[in-house]
């Protein structure tokens, strides 16, 4: 599904990613762990098409297409989703209005009929339950005045509605209490399927206890220095990054 080859990328003069190789197959869950500043979020951003980072070498192939020339919206319509580490507030734009537009943009791309208001509302209400939010939530403006937990739930709600093929979760578990983490993990588990792949970027193995990864990669100074199974996360928890 996703093949990253020898990817190098810079922000300004600074090289952030220094030759990344990654192969994510359908249905797989990959965890990427690493210290602050190791390049985890930059990797998430270049996959989704944020233009702040410049690719200087290598390629990102998604379903046999080179993503390099694709806009963020083209990538999204093809099934790539990013759960943001710091979701931005957009005052005045309520979630219902925004998500209906987004869901219908995707349906148009897939050649499906747009959802009418009633069907859309029925669907979103089902998904709201999965992330433990009530229906008043979707009348609020995107992330405007949201608590940390609400922001992350909102990201997972969007994931559930947009049904991506590849979901990248950038520190979705950071700053959450145990209950919120449970809810988020439940949302992710619900979304798991043999066709849907996940890249979970995290500092802690806690989320990985709920959502078991097939592979764990350790990112250090822009390179993947170690890859292994779920046991790698456990070793990291016990020994810290110094061990790497």
């Amino acid at each position, binding site marked *: 599904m996703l093949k990253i080859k020898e990817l190098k990328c810079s922000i300004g003069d600074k090289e952030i990613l220094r030759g990344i190789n990654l192969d994510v197959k359908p249905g797989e869950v990959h965890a990427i762990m690493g210290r602050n500043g190791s390049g985890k979020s930059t990797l998430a951003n270049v996959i*989704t*098409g*944020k233009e702040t980072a410049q690719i200087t070498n290598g390629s990102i192939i998604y379903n046999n297409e080179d993503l390099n020339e694709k*806009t*963020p*919206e083209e*990538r*999204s*319509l093809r099934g790539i*989703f*990013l759960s*943001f580490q710091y*979701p*931005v*507030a*957009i*005052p*005045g*734009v309520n979630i219902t*209005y*925004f*998500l209906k*537009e*987004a869901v219908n*943009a*995707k349906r148009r*791309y897939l050649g499906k009929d747009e959802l009418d208001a009633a069907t859309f509302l029925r669907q979103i209400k089902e998904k709201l339950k999965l992330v433990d939010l009530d229906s008043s939530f979707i009348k609020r*403006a*995107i992330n405007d005045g949201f608590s940390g937990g609400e922001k992350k739930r909102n990201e997972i709600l*969007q994931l559930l509605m*947009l049904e991506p093929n590849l979901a990248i979760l950038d520190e979705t578990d950071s700053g959450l209490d145990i209950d919120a983490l449970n809810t988020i993990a439940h949302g992710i588990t619900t979304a798991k399927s043999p066709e849907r792949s996940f890249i979970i970027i995290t500092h802690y193995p806690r989320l990985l206890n709920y959502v078991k990864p097939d592979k764990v990669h350790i990112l250090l100074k822009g390179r993947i220095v170690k890859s292994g199974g779920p046991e790698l996360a456990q070793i990291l928890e016990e020994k810290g990054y110094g061990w790497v």
Partner: protein
Amino acid sequence: MSLSHFQTEFDKMINREYSSPEVNPLRKDAFLKLLDIGFPTQKWEDWRFTNLSYLKNKSFRISDSQDVPPSVLDVSPYEIDDIDTIIIYNGHYQENLSSVPEGVQLISGIEYFEKQNGKIEFKEHTPFDLLNTAFMDISMCIIVEPNMIVETPVRILFISDGESSIMVNPRVYLDMKESTKLTFIEHHVGDAFSFFQNESIFLSLGPNSIVDHIRIQSNSSGTFNMANLQVNQGTDSHYSFFQFAVGGQLGRTNIHCELEGKGSECDLNGLALLTSAKHLDDNIRVNHIAPNCRSNQSFKSILKDESSGVFNSRTIVQEGAQKSDAKQSNKNLLLSKKAVMNSNPQLEINSDDVKCAHASATGELDEKAIFYLRSRGLDIESSKKMIVRGFALELLEKIKDKNILDYLMNSLQSWLKL
């Protein structure tokens, strides 16, 4: 600025057969004062950012009997559900097309003037107040008697139309007696090729009265809109104002709000959607005279192309106006490199136990927000429009009447497509 052209029109005005001669002394007095001080130039502190050469370069004539509407006047494009409308066409009152709801009294300005035994204070702050007094053509008064809660909103629909350069000077009094409630809409429309409207609106809010005032400026791009609003508020009265400005070429709205009665509140809001070379100048004075009053101002402008805007607001807390609560907020979105906004919120505080705050922010669209929406599959244009729409909606949603809100939402939607 030369006023010789206005002199010719003024002579026509006072010699006109159907105008009321009893107000001529008032007119003459005002016109003499106007000749004395002249029209503002950009050297005047309050007019620094507004160039009035538009007014100088055009010869406007007073509206005449020939400027009446066609036999069938189509007002369907301006339809808003469940409201009563008073129609004024090029300064001519269309009585047969107008209606007011029960509980609202509509009389002519002259009648009102007589009723008050000529004791009306005009509060002439600018040369345009004087111009209105000198040239007032259509004048009317809306009276709401004590304890009357009027459910149906009242709208004055000002239509400006035609090929020639006309000047109208409407004057409206809104006299809200004690414990009354009304939603009042002034709606400015029409396709005039060239038009100058200089309106004066006097709102008097009796104790415990509530007024929702909505001003929709959506007339042609050949129109110069000058609005002079004077609001006097009694004890515990509540005045809310919302200006939705999308039309006109050059616009200036002067709002003078006097919080005279203890516990009175005013909430002033404005949303300007500007394109091409349009210019809108909002000039606000809120005067906290009595104690325990609250004032809030939220003004937003969205500027495209080479448009420009001004937010010049001064809130004054007088000595003795203790426990005043005053807020000013001005937020602007520049959608073009050539658009300009001048924002100048000021507080003048002469009392010690008060709560005052002001904020002003002018910026471009948030790149992070655009990326967020694009990452959800929306194309770049739709993403930008969604953010702009949200910016407007945040304020627009303060309008309580659903039909009016729907109408303005549609206007906003069409503007976004421009």
